[in-house]
């Protein structure tokens, strides 16, 4: 190694390498500065920091720990951990908190029956399936008085039509994330996804059910259709659209849209919120033809050990101040009217993610549990992407 360091050639190579690194990264840094200077986001940035001061809640009447426990099974990074501390302080019930990555992981654990949770937070279609398979138990509303805070617009959805088994925790939509600088005009329709103007300038989701649902809506069908003719229409539309699509992506869409890689992307509203917080150029719209609306909702599994604790937890999560604090952290749209008031309705509703027009929202549908028919979607999707 010593001999290497003495060689002139080594140092020349090192210097050349460093120059390359500077050109690659130092250069782009300067570019950002110029852009920043022109748009003046420095001030905006400061203002934003002031605004995003955490929404602080303190435990009301702390009590001693009782030794009672409940176990909660939720999506990863989907709760403000302070909220759990407050629950423990107020009720004396210790929360064992575990997280899952997909509905299917969660389902497998509950269905196998090996483990027992008291509160779980599945998505709509999974709730429908779990109700069908008797894996959930009805919630006793007498013990969950704060359910009055939940906006009735977001209850009695087809996955739990009698509003017996689940309390919506967050909701979201699928829609278009677009770059206001590069689109000719702000889109309000899915038609932009077929517009030659945006050839090789749009991202689609590499997710069979979701992308197929949008294609079904675009061809005028029900987004849960399992009718062969409907699905053939959707398939044809997606194949025809292929030359316009820059790429079929999943998580990468966020980084790419923030970097300005394309003008339009089909996204989930949660990703849109993140992208819009990172880039002022991005905006979100739920197209007027309607879309998919999805829920994650709190449920009590059939084999829960501490049902009363679970009810207390669900009631607690529906409390206005708690739901507001939690919204402040999680950032997904919430169905809790009182919490929205408390957090600041005007600012909340200013976001196109939280507040799509009512008539659009009415056209939005949840995914139904399709059972074996899910395979149809996968098969068609495979045929679509392997078309070349």
């Amino acid at each position, binding site marked *: 190694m010593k001999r290497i360091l003495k060689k002139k050639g080594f140092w020349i190579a090192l210097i050349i390498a460093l120059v390359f690194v500077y050109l690659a990264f130092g*250069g782009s840094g300067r*570019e950002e500065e110029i852009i920043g200077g022109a748009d003046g986001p420095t001030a905006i940035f400061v203002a934003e920091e002031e605004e995003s001061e955490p929404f602080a809640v303190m435990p009301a009447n702390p009590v001693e720990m009782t030794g009672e426990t409940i176990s909660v099974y939720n999506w990863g990074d989907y709760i403000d951990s302070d909220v759990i501390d407050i629950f423990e302080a107020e009720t004396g019930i210790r929360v064992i908190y575990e997280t899952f990555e997909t509905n299917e992981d969660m389902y497998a654990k509950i269905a196998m029956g090996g483990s027992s949770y008291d509160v779980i937070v599945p998505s709509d279609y999974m709730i429908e399936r779990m109700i*069908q398979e008797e894996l959930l138990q009805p919630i006793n509303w007498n013990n969950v008085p704060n359910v009055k805070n939940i906006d009735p617009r977001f209850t009695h959805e087809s996955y739990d039509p009698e509003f017996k088994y689940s309390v919506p925790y967050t909701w979201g939509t699928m829609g278009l994330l677009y770059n206001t600088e590069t689109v000719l005009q702000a889109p309000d329709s899915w038609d932009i996804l077929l517009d030659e103007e945006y050839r090789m300038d749009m991202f689609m989701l590499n997710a069979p059910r979701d992308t197929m649902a949008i294609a079904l809506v675009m061809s005028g069908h029900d987004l849960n259709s399992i009718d062969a003719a409907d699905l053939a229409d959707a398939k044809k539309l997606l194949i025809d659209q292929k030359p316009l699509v*820059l*790429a079929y992506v999943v998580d990468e869409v966020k980084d790419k849209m923030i970097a300005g890689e394309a003008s339009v992307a089909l996204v989930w509203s949660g990703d849109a919120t993140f992208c819009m917080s990172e880039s002022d150029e991005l905006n979100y719209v739920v197209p007027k033809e309607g879309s998919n609306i999805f829920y994650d909702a709190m449920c009590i599994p059939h084999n829960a050990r501490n049902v009363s604790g679970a009810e207390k937890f669900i009631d607690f999560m529906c409390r206005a101040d708690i739901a507001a604090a939690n919204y402040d952290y999680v950032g997904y749209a919430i169905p809790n009217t009182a919490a929205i008031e408390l957090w600041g309705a005007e600012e909340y509703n200013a976001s196109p993610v939280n507040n799509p027009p009512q008539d659009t929202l009415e056209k939005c549908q949840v995914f139904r549990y399709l059972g074996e028919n899910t395979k149809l979607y996968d098969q068609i999707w495979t045929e679509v992407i*392997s078309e070349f």
Partner: protein
Amino acid sequence: MMRNKALAAPFVLWAMIFIVVPLVMIVWYGVTIEEPIPYTEIVQPDGSVIYQLEDGSRTTEKPWQKRAVFSLNNFRRMLEPTYLRLLLRSLKVAVITTAICLLLGYPVALILTGRDFKRPALWLLLLILPMWMNFLLRTYSWMSILENSGILNSWIARLREAIPALDEWLLSMGVRRRIIFLYNENAVILGMVYNYLSFMIMPIYTVIEKIDKSLLEAAADLGASPVKSFLRVTLPYSLPGVLEGITMVFVPAVTTFVISQLMGGGKVPLIGDIIQNQFGKSSDWHFGATLSLLVMVVVLAFMGALGRIDKDDEPHKEVRIL
């Protein structure tokens, strides 16, 4: 003899748990499908329905459980044009990748082992150094270089800004301001070549390095030109390394899935992507296993063919050198 067997026991156990059992599971999943458990509906006198299962037990709720049954349906589905085309494309991409790796890797190995080349170990280290990083990271770096908003495009943009004449000329040639390098088959091949190149260089380098230099000297003494001594000595002797390199590049290339998703932007799906989908999004482990079996057969056939070349060569070697 007994002692040797005892020593091998941990390995045998290891092989059983991590090789034989998973293989058996893949085969089992591959030849079965899931179907709802059969039941008969019995309408009660009061109009309600009771469901009777095969074992005679009765329930008032409609049974939803599934069971695995033997079926070759997935093999039929596997032979649909969609999947065969995907397999063909995977083979094509893998062959091109392997060929490029060989064309790039063989000369590199040759140069590194050259008599005049100083400090080959350092250069070899530099070649392998990037391989110590996670390959996802390396692929992501290529993405940020090649993206529309990536490093390469921003350099080109800066160059075109600096030289307006060049910009005009390129525009007149129909070259867009933003060149789409990513999201196509070539990008996928580039990503694979970059990731697998060292797997080609290493075995070839090792083999060439071990060739007895006196053979080359003898060839030169006897009047063979460098080209001739390469063709008659180095090339035949390096063939085992080449075959190993080909295997080490081709096999991962034909089964990869992440590189094609990231570099191809989901537009260049390979058979590996589809298999991965079956175990992920589609959660159809049975069909995924069937496709895995298909790929295993193809890879085995390929290895078998290579093995034959290797064997065929052995007897000629001496003759050729002599």
